[in-house]
């Protein structure tokens, strides 16, 4: 099959040619590794595939760095902090966004072992990617900060690993800190996760203390992969990254069989065939090898020009001869959160389209389609895996394309059944039909786990009750730390739950969530009218019982954000034709410069010219100028927290 959408390809090659034309070759690589003496396949007995699961900031990347150093994979000289986090953004934020892998060779009791560390994203937005990565491992290091203890993400990720039948090796990091409390943390691990923590390894990823013990435990405690190197090729795609010169770099774990350079392979889900032009392992630089065999983890380069053609969770097999079966668990990426992105200046629409297209080449899990707003003009409705994903994409857009953007408040996908029986999936509040046409209005529900010091339990319970959460369970991780589990509408999570959690627990609480499914809700579409005109970009969907409070809060916020005009501006919140909140911005009463003589003329002219520029950046609805910030007014909760908003 001919691959590549003309659009993406044209961007990538700068031409409009189609097909598997070889792409620009990078400089030759003399450093083939391992040496030519390597056998055609590696005995799975001597392979260990593992990942590190941890809460953010518990030291995952630092431990990974240290392991590379201890095994001599990277010399001290080459050491750069957090080698595995390739992307600048990951370094900046100290989080892992993409999965990654690195292969280490280590001698243990006279035998050489291949240890493949698969670094997984830690955030719930990338749950599916995480599950695919975990499928490629036989074990996991459960890394817990010896002071902070078990957190929500630790639990979520550990459960995930347990579900994947991984052997879990608890590791306590930062054991050298004075405030470390290893015994209590071990207790928390046993309580929460039902794991035996007696043999937990105490280490310091920062100083390297006991990191050799971690390596030893990987070899001794994590089982080797099973799989037959001689069986038909069956490999799992667990991630891909985009390289400007080589196109898609596909990360795979070979389950069965062997794949060699030059082989013709087939992606079973995508149904596409490609030639393997290069394969190898990351050490941590990409290092070409002649083949990868059962149990091994590595990368493949197949002249694929867009990541959109590489599906995480897909199965690789041979294009000719006996083919393997597809591995189970494949899913399409689920976009959970949507928002509108509009160029401030309508002229930038095409530039924005190009920039979004370029980003999508690197990140096919994000989608966009053109939409038109009366208020904001031409823009795009964009779908993301979650809130963090949305933030990442926006940040990249800002960094990589110099476009001033207006973002609408994020919303989730609703499922609506109309009276005529038709089901709709709605990503934009304005597309919600009139209430009279709706038979059933469903929204996504997530199961949220909160972990916090016991003293904040009451506050979080109240928060969840206010958000109409359904209590699932409460567990004491230790006498002072509690896990609370609630089922809550995803819309509430998107709205402000994380901010609220942080403010309620003074920053000590953590949370994680997973999608449970769709449930009917008592939902309504609330519209905002400015000077009697509906501002489509300000419409939201909310629970009927919250509508009055939300409506008042939004209107109040808008009143602050919209400057006085030379005429009166009425602000209203409405459900259908019923007005639920109203405010008026009274007309400007006095705005005139008294002194205006020789020296004032230039200064005043410049000031007024600047104001004119400022006006241009506002969006005009009717004759009302609305500043961009006002489009996020719908995030207002109407609750005061000591006067300071945590957002």
């Amino acid at each position: 099959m001919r691959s590549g959408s003309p659009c993406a390809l044209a961007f990538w090659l700068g031409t409009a040619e189609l097909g598997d034309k070889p792409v620009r070759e990078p400089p030759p690589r003399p450093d083939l590794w391992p040496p030519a003496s390597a056998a055609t396949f590696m005995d799975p007995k001597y392979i260990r595939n593992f990942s590190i699961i941890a809460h953010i900031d518990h030291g995952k990347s630092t431990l990974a760095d240290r392991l590379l150093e201890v095994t001599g994979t990277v010399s001290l000289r080459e050491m750069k902090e957090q080698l595995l986090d390739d992307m600048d953004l990951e370094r900046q934020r100290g989080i892992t966004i993409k999965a990654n892998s690195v292969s280490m060779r280590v001698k243990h009791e006279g035998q050489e072992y291949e240890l493949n560390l698969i670094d997984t994203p830690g955030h719930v937005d990338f749950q599916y990617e995480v599950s695919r990565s975990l499928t490629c491992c036989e074990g996991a290091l459960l890394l817990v900060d010896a002071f902070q203890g078990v957190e929500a993400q630790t639990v979520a990720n550990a459960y995930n690993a347990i579900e994947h039948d991984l052997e879990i090796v608890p590791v306590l990091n930062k054991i050298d800190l004075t405030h470390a409390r290893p015994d209590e943390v071990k207790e928390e691990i046993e309580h929460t996760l039902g794991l035996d923590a007696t043999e937990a390894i105490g280490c310091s990823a920062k100083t390297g203390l006991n990191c050799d013990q971690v390596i030893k435990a990987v070899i001794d405690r994590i089982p080797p992969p099973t799989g037959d190197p001689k069986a038909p090729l069956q490999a799992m795609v667990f991630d891909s990254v985009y390289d400007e010169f080589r196109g898609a770099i596909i990360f795979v774990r070979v389950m069965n069989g062997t794949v060699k350079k030059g082989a013709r392979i087939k992606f079973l889900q995508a149904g596409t065939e490609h030639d393997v032009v290069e394969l190898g392992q990351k050490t941590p630089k990409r290092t070409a090898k002649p083949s990868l065999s059962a149990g091994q983890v590595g990368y493949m380069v197949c002249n694929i020009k867009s990541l959109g053609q590489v599906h995480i969770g897909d199965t690789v097999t041979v294009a000719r001869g006996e083919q393997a079966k597809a591995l189970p668990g494949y899913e399409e990426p689920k976009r959970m959160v949507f928002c509108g992105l509009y160029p401030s200046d309508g002229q930038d629409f095409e530039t924005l389209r190009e920039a979004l297209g370029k980003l999508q080449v690197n990140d096919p899990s994000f989608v966009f389609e053109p939409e038109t707003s009366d208020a904001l003009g031409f823009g795009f409705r964009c779908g993301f895996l979650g809130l963090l994903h949305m933030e990442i994409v926006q940040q990249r857009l800002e960094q990589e394309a110099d476009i001033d953007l207006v973002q609408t408040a994020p919303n989730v996908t609703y499922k609506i059944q109309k009276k005529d029986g038709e089901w709709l999936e709605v990503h934009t509040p304005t597309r919600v039909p009139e209430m009279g046409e709706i038979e059933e209005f469903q929204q996504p529900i997530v199961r949220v786990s909160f972990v916090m010091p016991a003293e904040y339990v009451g506050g979080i319970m109240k928060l969840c009750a206010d958000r109409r959460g359904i209590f699932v369970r409460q567990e004491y991780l230790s006498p002072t730390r509690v896990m609370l589990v609630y089922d809550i509408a995803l819309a509430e999570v998107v709205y402000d739950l994380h901010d609220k959690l942080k403010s309620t627990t003074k920053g000590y609480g953590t949370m994680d969530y997973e999608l449970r499914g769709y449930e009917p809700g008592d939902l309504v579409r609330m519209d905002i009218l400015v000077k009697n005109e509906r501002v489509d970009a300000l419409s939201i969907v909310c629970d009927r019982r919250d509508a009055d409070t939300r409506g008042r809060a939004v209107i109040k916020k808008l009143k602050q954000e919209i400057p006085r005009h030379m005429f009166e501006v009425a602000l209203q919140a409405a459900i259908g034709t019923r007005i639920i909140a109203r405010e008026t911005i009274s007309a400007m009463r006095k705005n005139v410069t008294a002194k205006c003589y020789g020296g004032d003329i230039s200064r005043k002219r410049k000031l007024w010219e600047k104001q004119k520029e400022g006006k241009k950046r506002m969006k005009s609805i009717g004759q009302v100028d609305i500043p961009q910030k006002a489009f996020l007014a719908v995030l207002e909760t109407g609750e005061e927290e000591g006067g300071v908003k945590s957002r």
Partner: protein
Amino acid sequence: MLPIHLQARKNLMPRAAYIHVPFCSHRCGYCNFALVAGRLDLVPSYFEALQREFHSQLVEPREVDTLYFGGGTPSQLGAEGLARLAELATHWHPLAEGFEWTVETNPADMDAAVAQALGAAGVNRLSLGSQSFRPAKLELLERDHRAEDIQRSVELARQQGMAVSLDLIFATPGETLQQWLDDLRLAIGLEPEHISVYGLTFEKGTTYWGRRERGELESAEDELERDMYLAAIEELAAAGFEHYEVSNFARPGHRSRHNEAYWRGDEYYAAGPGAARYVAGVRETNHRSTTTYLKRVLAGESPVDEREQLTDESRARERLVFALRRLEGLRREDFAAATGFTIDELAAEAIQRFVEWKLLDDDGQRIRLSREGLLVSDAMWPEML
């Protein structure tokens, strides 16, 4: 830009000149003008610098119709200093027949000798920084004069045959409408030819700004300030003053011709620290620091700090806006003749909208601010620039 002598031949030379006198006895809390307080020791260098600036800017004497000494406080120079400045200025700017020559003075400085010096030099218009007649308000404004000083200054000016203009400030912290009306009536009672009224503004960099930030001072409510302004318009109109610019009121035939040149978009010369000139389509402002100004000029360098050459269109737009601040508004015909642009090609859409909102009156020939438009006019200008 044409050399000055060539422009002279084309009769495009400015007909107005402004001289900035930066000296003050102290800085008042609300003032952010270019000045130095308590540095009369700099006066000799100032004269030297002015002489040099005139020489390098003008090359040869340039006749003007209006001459204006502003500050700072020109009267800080005293009788002798004023006489010297007058001589220097009129050497470089000889006055044409029918000239207007204004000097700003602080009522506290005004004595018989100062009045005599000004009268003898030919000054025919005195602009008095009176601000208020109420002691508490004068104190709050950190002014060093009293109500009696204002009255004496007016009498002295009269003796020298000078027309008088009074400056008044309103909407000061805590001021009531009645207190403002009292100030207005006292001013009217002195029968000046001209009155300027200014709502107090808090400018960044003044002690007032900081005091307001700290909550020690409160600006007047918009609604009160509006009422005070409207009251001034009404009172002054009733007393026979014509409201001819946002802040300026004159008895018939006594408008400030010098200031009208600014608003009409005419060009003007200027000298002194922080002074702004508009010559041959170029707007320039001298450095605001008196010491920097002196250092630069005395070292033979240009004192210009900012310089801006306007395009024909921005010149026209600027003229449109500043001329509309005059109550008589702007005649389409005059504007087109002066700028080469028609008002409607520059701002038809905005004008139509403002007429609809009753902020502008348009009789087809002339557009002018309505009363309501006058009050919110700053919000209109961005749409016309």
